């Protein structure tokens, strides 16, 4: 990715262009990390959702709640509030990640415009 191709280009590459290419590369890396993080955050969210649904269905007064490596016996209502807290934390986190993804995509689109504008098809900024 992001390598110049073909020999027909005579366009001078300036330090500014190089910096833009670097920035694009960095953003692209971060984007991939973010996509992974968003995926795990969503999974956590789903798991918590499942857990709270199961909690509603169960008659058990005391729930075995995993803390670290052990299962602590915790009363039903306390587990409920704990799960709610965790759900809230993950969804705020998810929102933050989605927001970052948005800004990164916008910045990348901006850089693409600049770089394609200058190098035309001598540069390739797309994923394989």
């Amino acid at each position, binding site marked *: 990715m*992001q*390598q*110049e*191709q*073909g*020999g027909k*280009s*005579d366009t001078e*590459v*300036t*330090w500014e262009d*190089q910096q833009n*290419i*670097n920035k694009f*590369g*960095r953003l692209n*890396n971060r984007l991939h990390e973010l996509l992974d993080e968003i995926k795990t955050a969503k999974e956590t969210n789903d798991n918590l959702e499942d857990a709270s649904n199961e909690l509603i269905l169960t008659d058990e007064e005391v729930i*075995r709640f995993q*803390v*670290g*490596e*052990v*299962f*602590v*016996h915790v009363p039903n209502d306390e587990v409920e509030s704990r799960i709610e807290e965790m759900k809230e934390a993950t969804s705020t986190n998810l929102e933050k990640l989605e927001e970052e993804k948005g800004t990164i995509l916008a910045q990348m689109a901006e850089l693409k415009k600049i770089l394609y504008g200058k190098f035309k098809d001598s540069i390739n900024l797309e994923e394989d």
Partner: protein
Amino acid sequence: MASTSIETMTTTTAERRGIPGAQFVEDVQTYLTQLGLDVNSALAFLQERLQQYKLVEMKLLAQQRDLQAKIPDIEKCLDVVGTLQAKKGTGEALIADFEVSEGIYSRAHLEDADSVCLWLGANVMLEYSCEEATSLLQNNLDNAKASLEVLIADLQFLRDQVTITQVTIARVYNWDVHQRRIRQATAAKDS
């Protein structure tokens, strides 16, 4: 060897954690004459650099993975100590099922646990009061997070150098192709 002259030329670019900065080439022709290298040896040198960068990148990525695994571990420990502390003074025992061996669980009653033992590594375990344990673990967590941040910055710097080198390789290559075409064109005209 040409590497000495290259070393002096790269002093203009910053260096980070022993990772040399890649030099940005303004003009391929001047770059080659300055180095006194022909196209092929310049490309070979740049490729070698790229390999070195990739090697460092792999090392840093491994470190990053370690740290990223360590952080949730510490958070889990903090969670457990917090749970113990929350039960303390309530007069109730904390009942927990814990794994004795793989797949085998037993039940523990923890009454007014004042202290926990922390595995410090190197076959050493020390007993701490819950407060001390929390502050120690918190401290470890902050340290791990700080190192991760530094590591990510290092990786970014490294990746910039990789990108610069890749672009330079492409440009040296393109320049060479271009030069050959010019030579061919003039040769065709002469004959």
